[in-house]
């Protein structure tokens, strides 16, 4: 079984959101099914992450569940409550693709 960087990035970001807000649910892990079904098209504030403290909790969960090699890049991620979660998925996916 092989999962692509797209799938791994989606899982890591969805789980990091779920760890910070019960508004996000992981229905199944394999295949990944999340609620809300358009999670990655919503902003962080739309799912309950609207303070910088909560975004830091999200960031640190993401650092923990992503490969160690990505930790520095995730630490430097620009985050704000109003941005769309999918933009973070896309960036994590690109970072995973760029790993040797």
């Amino acid at each position: 079984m092989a999962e692509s960087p797209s799938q791994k990035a989606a899982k890591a970001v969805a789980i990091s959101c779920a760890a910070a807000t019960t508004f996000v649910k992981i229905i199944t892990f394999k295949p990944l099914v999340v609620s809300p079904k358009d999670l990655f098209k919503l902003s962080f504030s739309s799912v309950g992450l609207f303070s910088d403290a909560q975004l830091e909790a999200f960031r640190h969960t993401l650092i923990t569940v992503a490969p160690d090699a990505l930790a520095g890049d995730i630490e430097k991620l620009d985050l704000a409550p109003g941005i769309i979660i999918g933009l973070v998925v896309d960036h994590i996916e690109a970072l995973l693709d760029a790993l040797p």
Partner: protein
Amino acid sequence: MKSRILPALFTCAFALGCGTSVLAQSSKVAIKEAAKADAYGIALVRFIDLPGSKHRAVVDLSAPQDKTFAAGSPAAGALATSDLKASNIIIKFLPSGKIVPASAINNVADHKTAPDTENMSGFGDTRLQIGIIELEDNDPDQKDSVPEPGDDRVQITFGVLHFVGVSTPGSAATMVERKNVSGTGRIYNKANINERVEETRQTLIDAVAHAKTDDEKGAFVAFSVVVPAGGNSQGSGDISFNRDLYAASLAQAALFDHVKVGFHLNKASETASDPRHFDLGFTFRKTFLRANTAKLSEIKNAINNGAKAEFASDQIVQDINDLQQDFIRAYIFDNALRLEGDVSTRGIGNVSNLIWDAQLQVATVSRALAGQTGFWNFRWVPVGVEAGGNLTNNDNPTSVKGSLVRGKTGGEFNLIFKAGDPNEPVSRIQISAKALERYLFMDENTLDPVTKLAVIADKGSKYWLQADLKIGTGVKVGAGRVGFRASFQRGYLPPVYNYVKTFNFGVVFETNDDDNSKNLKLK
């Protein structure tokens, strides 16, 4: 004189707003580009020519796919009628015109190297992944399954694609069928994958610059009326601005992991409703995640190495559910160096203090309301210390510029209800309440209510209470929606501790610029 301060500060805020609006404009260009795509078509395509599980194409649709036709393998449903069956997909490399053989398109579940072909969850049924099998060198189709050295673009065509049509009130959404749906995009390989990293990083930076916090947004688009206790109606402003200056890599993060710069202004034009508060400074932040490390490690392993069985998958879901049961998610330790100023007719520095502000914040997990109609959360500052000294007091130049020490504790509660349809008459209700208790251990300059000058020395309890109610409506005006905002403020803020008791209400115009989802379609 009184009237000069607010316009000057709002001019400053407007200048910052212009900065964000420039970025908003570039985002709008991207939105226009995306809008060129058919309402039922392909918005974005990319092909990743990297080995193993990275070998794939990603297709973003401009409307949700009908999931009845989304099986990527026999195990996922009826492959014969699926839009994702290999025979329905043509992947052509450009400019060579070479076409990927159908045998290289993965329609097998759990293939040993190739990723699944599927409609990915979480994107509202609009993102498709097409797994490409790395064919053996002795396979006659192998040569055609990889781009020529000069190929830099890919064209992906679906013989037929089924979309979910727009639903109308009282009737279910219909299925929309489109034939020969095609899209073109870049090929990324080992040589240029870092360009993709930079593109996505820059898109995030632009989105953050464009995204406005509620406080910032209020400064630009809210029209408020303040009613001080027993006074006449006046204007007011409450502006916050915070940006990351520096993020350490983990190896450097022994003392702090982020440095932020920010300011906060809370000002009104009538003395009885004017907190006269301004602060500007740097914050050094260190975050400590509070979570079961064994469970997180299990989750990390499952994401990166794959959960091999249904049991393992269920176990991971259980681990995540267990994580959500904890109320506290992180402890955040902030050390800030701030300049506090009295915003008055004599400028920001009429009375000013330099403060070292250390506080512990507790970040909690947001809790969903029943039926996912909203959520509530709580942020707590159990303890904080502010220490420093008075720099200026032009109201009383002969006063001793002494030291100051304060203790503080406080919290913030937020409750948000969202209607399923943003066009509902009441689409969103947000209630937030903040309380902060400062205790002044040493005498500080406070305002004389009679002379309006900071000539009294005082210490002891100085509280601040604030409650806000925001109601969003589905009423559209131009490019935005109209809402209402009411807030109540009572108490004292440094540096002059003017007693405030006001009720503030106004109309809020929320622009559609807040939606930066179109940035997802940036190439």
